[in-house]
């Protein structure tokens, strides 16, 4: 019996082995630099050794693998495009996108951990913070000693952040912060939060709130059927006294948080390709191994249609991301261009996940394969950082010059 169990275990662990290979149908690799290819390979190796073996278990239990924060820091996934002297990696935006792609190939939740830390916490402190704030927080965030989170969305203000009610009242050398933020990735484990709130003049200010400040709490949100391996919570502020030196001095408008979201959305437009490639890769392999009617199901036209459409859509998304990365490297990527790529690529990934699920048949709904996990994750990704519909309206406003939001 032991022998049989051992055999079964070997077979099962073999099936769970991460056999992912990248897909580059249009030889886009030729457009990348050595450092991009090396970064991709390094993160892919890290994901295969650290994420793939544990991710299904954590997702099933809805538990965050917090030990991975340290590993993400060590490989340099936090703020890779920020300067080295501030704890970043000194890389370009293309490299940042590629790193996000590889992380999300593992799991959207793991990518979210890194996106938030880099684009939503380190970036605003770097961009809008004082030199003192940069020196105090960025190296610790880059090394993973501090975990950060970003507070913009509120229970009653999601797509309409300008309606926020979280507020700051002047109290001499400090501000008194009141209000609540919702759907905050990393909040229950965060050491610092970059929080956006209105001052008494109605201007949106960014403040750095530290764990331990009186009146500040971070309750966890339970019952998510998506991003289950990433921890999400609220930020609650009850008369929190935030010293004035914790206010980001160089921004006083909604442009601040929106510029951070542009960075993160850019990363998501790459990340979604990772999730899509993982689903496609698994479906392609399964279609060659699964025999029905005495032949691999990949030989049937309807399976080929699905696979051919998947790789076509992935290739289009890759070209979009590559071009956006080229523009971002020159500082020319507009928020509207980023919206288009985020919207297109996330929807593409969702469709690929659903088609891949069908190719896997019944096995596609189990945790033996990554498909359902990616599909459920992507339901968050299509909604957070600007919903699918809002991004469409951003494109609409950009091309017509007419605002359909209000």
């Amino acid at each position, binding site marked *: 019996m032991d022998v049989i169990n051992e055999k079964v275990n070997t077979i099962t662990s073999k099936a769970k082995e991460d056999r992912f290979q990248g897909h580059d149908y249009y030889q886009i690799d030729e457009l990348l630099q050595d450092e991009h290819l090396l970064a991709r390979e390094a993160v892919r190796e890290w994901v295969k050794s650290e994420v793939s073996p544990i991710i299904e278990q954590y997702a099933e239990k809805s538990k965050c693998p917090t030990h991975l924060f340290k590993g993400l820091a*060590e490989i340099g996934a936090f703020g890779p495009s920020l300067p080295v002297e501030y704890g970043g990696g000194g890389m370009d935006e293309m490299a940042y996108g590629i790193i996000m792609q590889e992380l999300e190939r593992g799991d959207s939740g793991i990518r979210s951990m890194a996106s938030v830390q880099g684009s939503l916490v380190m970036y605003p402190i770097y961009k809008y913070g004082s030199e003192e704030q940069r020196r105090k927080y960025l190296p610790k965030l880059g090394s993973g000693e501090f975990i950060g989170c970003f507070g913009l969305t509120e229970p009653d203000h999601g797509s309409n952040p300008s309606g926020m009610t979280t507020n700051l009242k002047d109290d001499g050398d400090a501000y008194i912060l009141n209000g609540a933020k919702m759907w905050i990735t990393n909040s229950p484990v965060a050491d610092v939060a970059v929080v956006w709130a209105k001052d008494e003049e109605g201007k949106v200010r960014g403040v750095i709130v530290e764990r331990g400040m009186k009146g500040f709490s971070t309750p966890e949100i339970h019952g998510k059927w998506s991003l289950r391996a990433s921890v999400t919570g609220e930020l609650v502020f009850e008369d929190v006294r935030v010293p004035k030196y914790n206010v980001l001095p160089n921004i006083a408008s909604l442009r601040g948080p929106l510029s951070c979201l542009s960075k993160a959305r850019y990363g998501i437009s790459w990340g979604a390709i990772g999730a899509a490639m993982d689903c496609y890769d698994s479906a392609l392999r399964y279609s060659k191994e699964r025999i029905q009617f005495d032949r691999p199901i990949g030989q049937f036209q309807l399976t080929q249609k699905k696979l051919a459409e998947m790789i076509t859509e992935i290739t289009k998304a890759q070209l979009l991301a590559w071009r956006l990365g080229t523009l971002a490297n020159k500082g020319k990527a507009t928020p509207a261009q980023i919206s288009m790529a985020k919207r297109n690529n996330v929807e593409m990934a969702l469709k690929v996940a659903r088609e891949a699920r069908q190719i896997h048949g019944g096995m596609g709904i189990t945790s033996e394969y990554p498909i359902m996990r990616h599909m459920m994750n992507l339901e968050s990704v299509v909604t957070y950082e600007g919903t699918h519909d809002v991004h469409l309206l951003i494109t609409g406003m950009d091309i017509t010059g007419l605002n359909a939001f209000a």
Partner: protein
Amino acid sequence: MKILVCISQVPDTTAKISFKEGNTVFNTDGVQFIMNPYDEWYALVRALEIKESQGGSVTVINVGPAENETVIRKALAIGADDAIRVNAVSSSALFIAKQIAEVAKAAQYDIVFTGKETINFNRSEVGAMIAEYLDQPYISYATHLDLQGKTATIVREIEGGSETLEVDTPFVISAAKGLAEQRIPNMKGIMTAKKKTLKVVEPIAFDDISFPVRYELPPSKAGVKLLDADNMEELVRLLHEEAKAI
């Protein structure tokens, strides 16, 4: 310690293997290449550990075309100080060993590392040939290496057990699993690698003495036959006549 690590570029383990030109040349179309794992995970990392504990330098060397530079940069990203590429295309162990030995002779390394074999041609020859050209001791299949001053204590794999031996530098050593643990380069390492020196040298003239005649793929695996559990007679017949296992 002044250390040289020989690195080779090999097809990814998942690559589809085929040959062309009458089965005499490996077909590289659509093949992704990686650093030979024995060179990367064990030889290079152990060399770096020695440098980190005792000081010195780690140089990596590759005999190959310019396309191999991505793999060389990876070695630099993992932590090698500088790199040399001998600009030649060859799969001949003797040719490669000769070129590396020429570089090593001039630079006088304390230790030259190779992997125990490359995962494409599996010859395990280059290390021994370099040692011969340098007139130095060669220790193959090393799973453990300790250094006290100039004296190294090395454990090597042998059939069914291990052998421990001592040797003074300079020597050539081939690395097996266990000698070190894989290091994944981080983003800072990748960016630093861009600034490190990668020297390209031309090969010395050398007439090879062996040439591949042809390559053959192993026969494809036969399908699985399923029998009813109670059909013992047929099972015994198949095991005896077809599988020749009993």
